[in-house]
């Protein structure tokens, strides 16, 4: 099922969808930043970099749709990113941060117990869970599945971005 999506000649394929959405978002970013390159400061440049990066991930998630857990998590994160940050760090005091870290430690212990009951390789998978968006709430089997799809999409994304960069840098 995924193979027809992968063929470059297929107009509805993942790559073409991603390319369209990504180029649109790039142009949108360009519109929002009318300042010329020479006057941009380093900070602004970094901001724009981050925006482009987020746009790349979001456009890939949009091209994939909501079928996949990682794409849903990416879109949700992008939508609620600002809100999340405000809630977590906006008005947090030191005590709050301490509580939060304590809660994390407790949660880690619980997770550890669960992990002991599950497969031993799940310990390694914790790192993978952090890498794959939305991987925290998955069991090992689903995590591997999502990782495979995520890797495929990342490869497509890198290829398209590189071709765009090569195109515009010539």
């Amino acid at each position: 099922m995924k193979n027809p999506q992968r063929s470059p000649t297929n107009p509805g394929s993942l790559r073409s969808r991603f390319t369209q959405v990504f180029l649109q978002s790039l142009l949108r970013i360009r519109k929002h930043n009318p300042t010329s390159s020479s006057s941009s400061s380093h900070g602004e440049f970094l901001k724009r970099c981050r925006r482009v990066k987020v746009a790349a991930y979001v456009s890939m998630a949009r091209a994939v749709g909501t079928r996949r857990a990682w794409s849903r998590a990416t879109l949700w994160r992008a939508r609620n990113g600002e809100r999340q940050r405000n809630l977590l760090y906006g008005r947090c005091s030191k005590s709050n941060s301490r509580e939060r870290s304590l809660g994390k430690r407790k949660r880690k212990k619980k997770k550890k117990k669960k992990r002991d009951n599950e497969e031993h390789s799940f310990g390694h998978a914790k790192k993978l869970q952090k890498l794959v968006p939305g991987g925290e709430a998955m069991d090992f089997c689903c995590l591997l599945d999502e990782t495979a799809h995520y890797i495929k999409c990342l490869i497509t994304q890198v290829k398209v971005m590189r071709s765009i960069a090569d195109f515009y840098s010539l």
Partner: protein
Amino acid sequence: MNNSGGSGGDDMGFPDGGNSAANCPSSGMIANSISEEVPMMAMSSMSTLERPPISVDPFFTSGWDTLASLSHNENYGSSSLVSHGNFVGSSYPVLMDNQGFGRNGSTQLAQCLSDPRLQYIGSGSISEMVGGSFGLPELNHLANHGSLPNSASNINSSGCERNSEKGAQSCECQNSGEEPDGSSAGDRRRKRSPDPSSQYCSNKNNEGDNSDVLRLQNEKKQKIEQPESADFSKHNTKQSKDDSSNDGEAPKENYIHMRARRGQATNSHSLAERVRREKISERMRMLQELVPGCNKITGKAVMLDEIINYVQSLQQQVEFLSMKLSTLIPGMSIDLEKALSKEAHSRGGGATNLALNPGMGLPHLYAQGVLKGTLPIMPSTDQYRPLSFTGWRASSSL
């Protein structure tokens, strides 16, 4: 022996065929009319049609000849194997015959058709058909050649007539159709009486009882014939213990059917765990194909580390490319976008031959100036994608 060799080769084809076979189990068809040695030996090779004859003389009775005569050889992929007097290693030709028969609308086969699932056989590949027709209903992994021997013995069941008529043909039906005719012939290999075979043709629900008998018999046979083949034993479970999770009921295709191996625990927990473990190993294999350079890695931990590294490097590449693109944004124009999208579709990541945009020079210089400072920060991704990174190095050195 041959079986072990064949089973080794069969493993490749099975993961694909296994699911399909599970969908079309020959539940009722199982009646052992064929001698145990022949079907077990002959059926063991799922993927290879040309199996050397294994003392299969008694297997090839005149009844088969009549069947073969009915067959339209051109319909079969293995038609070369189909010869009237020669059934060497030819459980397949028989199967193929069935397939052809079904297509031709042979009435004999039509009668024999069992479950709706057998319909699948007509469209499937040989291995699927064999697996589907031979496998006892809940065989998840038809790659286990063990399934064949059991099913082979079950093939000729007189009770197959009960099976509903469907488009698919199973050789078992054929056999069952033939057997009553040829039962009088002294050449019949079937060591089992038609009665238990008819029982096997009954619904799957009843199969649990009969299958125990059958399996025990199969076990004995296989112990005699191929004690070394562990694959066969997959078929022969200690059914007496295993009732809960086993497929004795529910011919539904929604269930994942598993057979416990010989010498393994058969309670539902371990079976479910085994299913889960196999799922995980299957996914690890998929990931192994995706991640470059992981063909030689065996072991989940190392493999996971490789996967993690690969994902991290891909994400770093995305970050690097986004940085590159953000510097090139001022040079982007809408009319170029269409050409670019077309080009991005057609090509992979290769360089473009499109006309240069004179406005690109500035962003390029700017990029150089800015990125010079950030280059040392960029992590090296040489293992996976050195191209873009070295390209920047070259430009920055100018």
